[in-house]
């Protein structure tokens, strides 16, 4: 897989795939697709990178400790967003009820908690995809 053409092409394309993934995550509440689809696109850009450049280089880009941290605190992030409702005395995971201004619909910052949860879940799904890939690819040493 260490082929010259592949390396040059992926060096050009992969950053744009990654940015497109983040675009899909951020615009989850306006355009179709959302936190999950965007997260998978970002995850796939890292997987493509480590397929082309070899898992060692991929591993150096995203070491295991960072992945574990993103994954567990990404999932916790969802819970923390839920606790915002409880702190405001409203049931768990409340959004409009918790008095968060929903912003002007159609703009990037609209939807109050929704965009925050979406970003957190998107990054977390990306890190899970990468962890799954690295664990499955690891040959037994």
């Amino acid at each position, binding site marked *: 897989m260490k082929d010259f053409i592949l390396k040059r092409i992926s060096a050009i394309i992969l950053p744009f795939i990654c940015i497109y993934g983040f675009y899909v995550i951020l615009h989850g509440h306006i355009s179709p697709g959302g936190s999950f689809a965007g997260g998978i696109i970002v995850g796939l850009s890292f997987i493509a990178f480590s397929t082309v450049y070899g898992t060692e280089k991929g591993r150096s880009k995203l070491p295991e400790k960072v992945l574990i941290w993103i994954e567990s605190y990404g999932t916790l992030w969802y819970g923390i967003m839920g606790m915002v409702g409880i702190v405001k005395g409203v049931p*768990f*995971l409340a959004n409009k009820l918790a008095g968060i201004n929903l912003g002007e619909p159609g703009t990037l910052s609209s*939807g109050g908690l*929704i965009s925050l*949860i979406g970003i957190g879940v998107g990054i977390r799904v990306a890190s899970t995809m990468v962890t799954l890939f690295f*664990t499955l690819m690891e040959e037994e040493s």
Partner: protein
Amino acid sequence: MKIRNLLILLVALLASYGMLIAAAELPPYGIPDNPIHNQVSERYVNGALEDTGVPNIVTAIVLDYRAYDTMFETIVLFTAAIAVVITLKSWKKAGER
């Protein structure tokens, strides 16, 4: 092995007959006034913008009306990641007996 496969085939045929009858009895496909398009989905379509301030109704449902489901969905993905790591990571440290 043959009898087992034949038995399973028989049960599968019976089940498929029952399911086809049920599929035929389901409300016709694509009609706007099916029971599924009742006041629950009406509210989602009409009320999503001012309830959640988000034009994409599917995201509104996933991240606001039924956010509890999506929390458990991220937990399902988290469980799968932990389970994959626990089965495969054992290979290096504890030698297989």
